[in-house]
């Protein structure tokens, strides 16, 4: 029995590994940021919600599988990724690549056929950006990899918005920007904790190249920028008070968390526990902010 299967007391199976390739836990957040904007954009039918959800899952899952194929040479070097199906020898690299391409192709057709062509094109754009721009180009060449690469994870709200309205406009662009500017404080909190892993694999993450102080400083300013940016959709009527209060409260908590990391690092005290709590809270931040968007929209109409 392989290590991960033994750890959870389950027999390994191809089906379980194929699901693991899609990174279901990460996709749950991507799906939330796809589906919540649909309720901001309008009143989607159950069929539109269902097909957008299925298509979104398959597209993101396909991108994650292809990412695991492309990173197969370094995944065995990092504790975080060494138990994935390819480095642990449970699936062949070719099978993983074929699976990723197959489900991304299925997603393209499903979204184009049952939702609309723009939704399909945007989801495919997210796939290409993640696979080629982030994984192939930026990830191993620049410490700003996750700043620009954050755009890959920011496509889901555009997909959800386009599924309901058939277009992309300024309001949807703000949902994209919120995820784009959320990515640095979120991912660098993890990168600070895993910098030795990334160093071993030769991935030039900001903490390894720029140092901890500069990375934490940038996390702080990205958190301020995120807080301010998240309030701006209120000024042209996309959201009202419920969202505004949520954005300020959630952004404030994130900012205080990063500030605590910075203060502890400056004093030479241990900051790892605080950085881990910032990482975990940042996940909650995004989920709650997008739920607040849907609630705000419903409250204002109702």
């Amino acid at each position, binding site marked *: 029995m392989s290590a991960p299967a033994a750890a959870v007391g389950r027999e390994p199976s191809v089906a379980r590994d194929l699901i693991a390739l899609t990174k279901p836990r990460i996709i749950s957040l991507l799906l939330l940021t796809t589906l919540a904007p649909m309720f901001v954009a309008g009143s989607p039918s159950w069929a539109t919600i269902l097909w957008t959800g299925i298509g979104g899952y398959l597209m993101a899952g396909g991108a994650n599988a292809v990412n695991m194929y492309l990173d197969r040479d370094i995944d065995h070097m990092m504790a975080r990724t060494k138990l994935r199906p390819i480095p642990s020898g449970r699936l062949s690299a070719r099978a993983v690549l074929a699976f990723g391409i197959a489900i991304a192709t299925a997603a393209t057709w499903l979204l184009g056929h049952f939702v609309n062509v723009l939704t399909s094109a945007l989801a495919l754009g997210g796939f290409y950006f993640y696979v080629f721009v982030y994984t192939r180009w930026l990830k191993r060449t620049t410490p*700003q990899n996750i700043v620009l690469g954050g755009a890959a994870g920011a496509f889901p709200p555009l997909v959800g918005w386009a599924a309901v309205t058939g277009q992309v406009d300024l*309001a949807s662009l703000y949902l994209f920007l919120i995820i*784009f500017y959320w990515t640095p404080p979120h991912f660098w909190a993890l990168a600070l904790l895993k910098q030795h892993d990334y160093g071993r694999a030769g991935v030039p993450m*900001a903490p390894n190249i720029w140092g901890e102080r*500069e990375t934490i400083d940038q996390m702080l300013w990205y958190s301020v920028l995120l807080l301010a940016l998240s309030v701006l959709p209120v*000024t042209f*009527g996309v959201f*009202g008070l419920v969202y505004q209060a949520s954005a300020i409260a959630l952004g404030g908590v994130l900012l205080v968390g990063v500030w605590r990391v910075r203060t502890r690092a400056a004093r030479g005290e241990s900051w790892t526990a605080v950085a881990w709590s910032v990482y975990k809270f940042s996940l909650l931040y995004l989920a709650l902010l997008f739920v607040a968007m849907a609630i705000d929209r419903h409250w204002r109409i109702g």
Partner: protein
Amino acid sequence: MAHSFPAPLVSLPLIPIFWLAVALVAVSQVMILRSTMRAIRAAASDRARRGIEWAYAIVPAVALVVVLAATWHATRDYAVRADLKARANQTSTP
């Protein structure tokens, strides 16, 4: 803007909120660029690499300026509409 949104239930000082948010965005972006410049100087070995890293930092900042300009137009239009609606409500109230 193609999508129309309902008027707020409670009137908010939209223009001051806009400028306060823009000021925070501008200060943050400048600080990010300064920090990135420091980091690039310290880390990037050759001039070409520095240029590429600098371009990576500038692109999102330029895009943000464009989005903020579009937001100002949308905010101004929305504030005018909200104001007109509020005046109409006052006029129609007996």
